[in-house]
């Protein structure tokens, strides 16, 4: 199906007819009886995987099954931060692969995902922080990932609202800055991938929950039972975020995941005041300003497992305490709304993008509190793994078996969200 392209000219032209002549961005097809590959989960990672399967691996008979609606899960619930300053070689390669794809994503999809490399700054508040952050800076630079150490005055110059007072409980002693980091419009990422995948013939089936995974006598996957009937497929890729455990239980494959609520909140919109992304692991706050003007603030995970998509207020209050100390000018801002998403956390805080012991079953999960930044890279590598039935060298270390063999990729310090 040929899509209307987006350009400045087309916006002006269709503006003349009150923007009434745009076609639907993706079809609402009825599920077919048989597909070559089925992706379970229509978030950014799942839609992206379908898009790359179609665009790079020549598969055209693909379905994405989404139990809710596109953009209604974690893709629309995160704080949109993008960075790749992870400590270990495996993670640096994985997340930087993603940043490189982000850099051209709007052009590739012909959809403005509003990727803005405004810089991500991580603050140090203690001597220990300085040592850990400098270690990250050096490790990143060895891996070809840009990151630099800033003294407090340099941090203030980069982010003028920052409070450098020495009398606050955790004064700012310095910061690491990844200039290639930034933000993107999260909904646009889901919509852009959905539109581009649909144009390549991918069926995006919303309100279709997977209720079972059927396997043949050899043990290989044969298809999925859904609320909209049985769908035959020899390849099933599970990309179901917080519900991955629920889906994987249907196959008998154990995954080392626990699902927690992770909350975020936004303020009332104000004029541009905040030029970058600031994160602090120690006092747990992260903040940026959206193009609409809202301050987007990320809180921590709740202590307990849950699937409720809501969390406790004291978690948000803890973050706001930190924000108000770092940026006292925000004390009188009102918070507009808050929400929660359910994130699937692995014991080592690194994801799993892998084949499973069941032939034809693939899983992309465990992104925990930091999956949005990885959307293009994760989708790209998952598509490779499904199409070739073997992992790409970048995602080869991110197996389920690493928990058996002890090859953990322990990124708890880089994950930045208090667990």
């Amino acid at each position, binding site marked *: 199906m040929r899509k209307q392209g987006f350009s400045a000219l087309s916006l002006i032209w269709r503006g003349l007819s009150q923007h009434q002549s745009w076609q639907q961005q993706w079809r609402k097809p009825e599920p077919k009886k048989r597909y070559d590959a089925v992706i379970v989960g229509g978030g950014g990672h799942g839609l992206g995987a379908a898009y790359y399967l179609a665009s790079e691996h020549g598969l055209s008979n693909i379905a994405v099954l989404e139990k809710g609606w596109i953009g209604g899960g974690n893709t629309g619930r995160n704080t949109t931060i993008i960075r790749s300053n992870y400590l270990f070689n495996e993670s640096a390669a994985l997340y930087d692969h993603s940043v490189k794809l982000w850099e051209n994503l709007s052009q590739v999809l012909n959809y403005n995902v509003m990727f803005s490399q405004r810089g991500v700054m991580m603050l140090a508040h203690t001597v220990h922080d300085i040592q850990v952050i400098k270690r990250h800076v050096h490790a990143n630079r060895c891996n070809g990932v840009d990151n630099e150490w800033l003294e407090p005055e340099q941090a203030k110059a980069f982010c003028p609202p920052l409070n450098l007072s020495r009398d606050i409980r955790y004064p700012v002693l310095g910061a690491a800055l990844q200039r290639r980091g930034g933000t993107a419009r999260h909904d646009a990422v889901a919509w852009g991938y959905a539109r581009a995948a649909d144009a390549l013939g991918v069926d995006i089936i919303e309100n279709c929950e997977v209720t079972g995974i059927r396997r043949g006598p050899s043990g290989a996957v044969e298809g999925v039972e859904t609320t909209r009937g049985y769908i035959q497929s020899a390849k099933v890729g599970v990309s179901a975020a917080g519900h991955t*455990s629920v889906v994987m239980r249907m196959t008998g494959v154990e995954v080392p995941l*626990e699902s927690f609520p992770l909350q975020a909140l936004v303020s009332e919109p104000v004029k541009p005041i905040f030029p970058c992304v600031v994160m602090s692991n120690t006092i747990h706050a992260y903040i940026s300003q959206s193009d609409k003007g809202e301050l987007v603030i990320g809180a921590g995970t709740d202590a*307990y497992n849950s*699937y409720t998509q809501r969390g*406790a207020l004291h978690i948000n209050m803890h973050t706001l305490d930190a924000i108000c100390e770092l940026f006292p000018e925000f004390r009188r801002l009102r918070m507009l709304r808050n929400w929660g998403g359910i994130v699937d956390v692995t014991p080592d805080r690194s994801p799993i993008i892998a084949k499973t012991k069941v032939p034809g079953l693939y899983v992309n999960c465990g992104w925990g509190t930091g999956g949005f930044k990885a959307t293009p890279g994760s989708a790209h590598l998952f598509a490779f793994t499904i199409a070739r039935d073997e992992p790409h060298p970048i995602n080869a270390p991110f197996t389920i078996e690493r*928990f058996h063999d002890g090859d953990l990729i322990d990124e708890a310090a880089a994950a930045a969200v208090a667990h």
Partner: protein
Amino acid sequence: MLLIPCPYCGERPEVEFTHGGEAHLTRPSPPAEVDADTWTKFLYMRNNAKGVYAERWRHARGCGKFFNALRDTTTDHFIAVYKSGEARPQ
């Protein structure tokens, strides 16, 4: 914030408690004879139930005791609390 019914102190706010993860996990023994599969299950695999889930809590800023609870993870309502060492209620 959850109101958690401590079996020793009654209902208290969540901030008084720390979460102790999934309940009824038994450390395999003797360690030298345990194979890698069993260790993997004990250390890393969790049931992560959607629905009724047995978990440990510790009333850390109260009586200090550990106890177990059954909670529905789709609503966060507590179904039962019981003392450590007791069997999971049906």
